[in-house]
């Protein structure tokens, strides 16, 4: 795969074309016809303007931010757990967030932006701190199984909440479980964008340490890496990113796992700093395309995003797994 991207400029042109195509489909494809000319010269009538600014533009931003956040959190998690299969959905982080969001919906706390965000963050961080606590005691592969077990417990609890709550709340919770980029509000977008920026900058600050962390605990410690602080900070950032995107868009599978792996396979000479920037861009692109496919294939019906991300994500993960040599050594 890296051979295709040997020429940097070629890769950038490809990325630009992909980005442009995705933006085009997001903004100028749909039942209501809006041309690029109309949008640029602001010749939109009130109906088209509403669709353009209130629906398509925010949807596109959500798709980008959600994909980018999940991917960046996946990059952090893979790095800290030193396991390329450690993604937010695999480790049960999304399920933890889902559980707490369901709790928030079904109790007096309610479903306000603030409540859902905080509930999501708490749930994600709870799972992550448990994993971080267990990490020294179990093998790398076993940690993934622990994550899967957490998901089972969390979804059992969600079922229990759904079972014992009112029909209205039940509907809200199950609707929320069908992930979609459609329902994030403008204020949620701002929060997610801000969190992504903070975590990206945090990654810039921690990058030199994170690169050395990859050498293994003892080796990293001997050259001055503060292992505990680094893992706690990285997991915190990953948790916030997963939690917010899960709280606003529902649990979106596989983007957070696949994108960082692809970026790692393509970028061989650069450290965590560049990896994180490429991951954010590629993740955003992946989010955009998930949205585009949702729009084109299913003719604007609200189909759960997970259906699409799983259909594309699983083959990619299998491809990575089947590259035995790559996987065995990481």
């Amino acid at each position, binding site marked *: 795969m890296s051979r295709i991207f040997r020429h940097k400029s070629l890769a950038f042109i490809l990325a630009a074309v992909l980005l442009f195509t995705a933006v085009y489909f997001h903004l100028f494809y749909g039942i209501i016809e809006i041309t690029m000319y109309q949008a640029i010269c602001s010749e939109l009538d009130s109906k088209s303007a509403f669709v353009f600014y209130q629906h398509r533009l925010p949807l596109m931003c959500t798709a980008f931010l959600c994909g980018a956040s999940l991917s960046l959190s996946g990059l952090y998690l893979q*790095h800290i757990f*030193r396991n390329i299969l450690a993604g937010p959905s695999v480790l049960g982080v999304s399920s933890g967030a889902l559980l707490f969001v369901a709790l928030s919906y079904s109790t007096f706390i309610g479903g306000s932006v603030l409540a859902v965000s905080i509930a999501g963050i708490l749930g994600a961080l709870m799972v992550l701190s448990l994993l971080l606590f267990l990490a020294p005691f179990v093998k790398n592969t076993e940690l993934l199984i622990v994550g899967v077990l957490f998901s089972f417990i969390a979804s059992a609890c969600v079922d229990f909440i759904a079972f014992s709550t009112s029909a209205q709340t039940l509907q809200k919770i199950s609707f929320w479980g069908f992930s979609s980029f459609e329902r994030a509000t403008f204020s949620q977008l701002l929060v997610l964008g801000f969190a992504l920026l903070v975590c990206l900058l945090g990654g810039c600050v921690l990058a030199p340490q994170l690169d050395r962390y990859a*050498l*293994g605990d*003892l080796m990293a410690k*001997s*050259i001055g890496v503060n292992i505990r602080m680094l893992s706690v900070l990285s997991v915190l950032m990953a948790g916030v990113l997963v939690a917010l995107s899960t709280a606003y868009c529902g649990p979106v599978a596989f983007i957070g796992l696949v994108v960082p792996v692809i970026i*790692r396979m393509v970028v061989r*000479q650069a*450290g965590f700093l560049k990896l994180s920037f490429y991951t954010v861009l590629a993740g955003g692109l992946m989010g955009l395309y998930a949205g585009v496919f949702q729009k084109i294939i299913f003719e604007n019906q609200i189909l759960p995003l997970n259906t699409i991300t799983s259909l594309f994500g699983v083959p990619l993960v299998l491809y990575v797994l089947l590259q035995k040599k790559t996987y065995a050594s990481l």
Partner: protein
Amino acid sequence: MLVCEQIQLGYDRLLVDGFSYTFKRQNLYGIVGKNGSGKSTLLQALAGLLPVKSGHIYLDNQRLTRPVAQSYISFLPAQKQYFGYQTLAFFLSLFSKDKDKQNNLLGVFDLQEHANKPFYILSDGQKQLAYIIGVLLQEKPFVFFDEPLVFLDITNKNKLMDVLNEQIKTQKCCVVLSLHDQYILERYIPHQIDMKELL
């Protein structure tokens, strides 16, 4: 110099009891002992990575704390796994940005042609050499190696010992390594510490 005063090490069971010793610069020390006798534990403690149960370690008359250890000591753990798809050249840049030194050491162990290959496709022996080069690149006055000879062929074992002896002369450093190789032990190591005498 690095001075141990009556140090005690171990977990449930004591591995080292009342060990006092002075490691001097420009010297090469070998730690020998059977499996599970505490060679790695001792080395980690000497490198300031593991607290002692009792006793003291001093480095040039200062207490051996993490900051002191970081500026004076480099350490090669026995267990290591690099997580990343990056190349050998990138791997080495994590230890030192000095390209000349990197190329020099890569040349010594015939690894130049592998510099731009991803680290994970290297053989176990080549990875071991890469880690050793990483430790040497740090150019610290005290260098501790936990089993540096594993995976290495006879030629590279001899090369490594020659490089270590040269560094001891030119940089006036102190090198301590644990090993099982009788031939290397007799040929190169003047000072030996036997774990069975430390308990």
